[in-house]
């Protein structure tokens, strides 16, 4: 019983702690997205998005996950998943990639601090994530390929009409 209480207080403290991290991230991100800074920032993730065959919009959760990690970034990623702006298949691929490779700064530096080679860690993690998502996007989610293809087609169509002006600006 005391143990459960200890777990609850620890959990509450963790929630307080992550609130301190998540709230500023959300506020900064809201500013970034409304001022179109986010579009700029996630621009250089586009080659990766193209390789993973995911929509441009997916670069937002991808970027947040890569920088802040699966846990601290989860707020934004869950929010994006529920927003309906990213297809289920795209979200699957994005989360799969992030499962293997996220929080590139903190995770790497923690192990560098105890004497491991940071480049090796980053390189292998990135490679594992690329391989896994490549395999899954080509073979496992293959049954959804047609659906995915038509989805991305209509998505592109929608994009060009709705945010066409925005992309010209960029």
């Amino acid at each position, binding site marked *: 019983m005391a143990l459960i209480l200890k777990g609850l207080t620890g*959990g509450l403290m963790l929630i307080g702690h992550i609130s301190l991290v998540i709230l500023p991230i959300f506020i900064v991100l809201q500013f970034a997205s409304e001022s179109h800074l986010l579009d700029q920032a996630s621009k250089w993730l586009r080659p990766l998005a193209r390789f993973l065959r995911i929509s441009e919009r997916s670069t937002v959760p991808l970027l947040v996950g890569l920088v802040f990690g699966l846990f601290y970034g989860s707020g934004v990623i869950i929010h994006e998943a529920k927003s309906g702006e990213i297809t289920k298949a795209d979200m699957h691929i994005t989360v799969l990639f992030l499962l293997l490779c996220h929080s590139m700064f903190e995770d790497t530096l923690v192990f560098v601090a105890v004497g491991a080679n940071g480049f090796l860690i980053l390189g292998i993690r990135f490679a594992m994530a690329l391989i896994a998502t490549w395999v899954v996007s080509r073979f496992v989610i293959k049954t959804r390929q047609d659906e995915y293809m038509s989805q991305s087609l209509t998505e592109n169509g929608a994009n060009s009409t709705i945010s066409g002006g925005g992309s010209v600006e960029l």
Partner: protein
Amino acid sequence: MQRENIGWGTLGRGLRNGLETIWELSKVVLPVYVVLTVLEASLVLGWIGERCEPLMGLFSLSGSCAMVLLLGYVLDYYAAIGAIASLGLSIREITILAVMLSIGHSLILETAVAKKMGISATRACLIRLGASLFAGFLVSRLI
């Protein structure tokens, strides 16, 4: 993305999204944290760790590293690093462990969070564990 004037409204929208998400996240974090606290205090991890010691040869690690991996997988890498510090391992062993743990860590908590993002928990867990073990095997042959 709405295109409105940037100002206090932006701050409010960001804050509201953040609070909503923290509430969602709390529902995951609290129960998981209780489970982890109980696990940490119980002898379960030690028992499993002992059983896994013979497997460490696969990654050219000494038997005591089983506990380090287990702590990292189940709890978080800070717990694992605490164990690394107390064991006095070689740089080579630390590097192999670091590669494995950077891919797979905090599996219970992060899987619970990933489930909220719409991915199957079992699949998420197995993929990370598989990738972590595979990477460890690979790196132990390379360095």
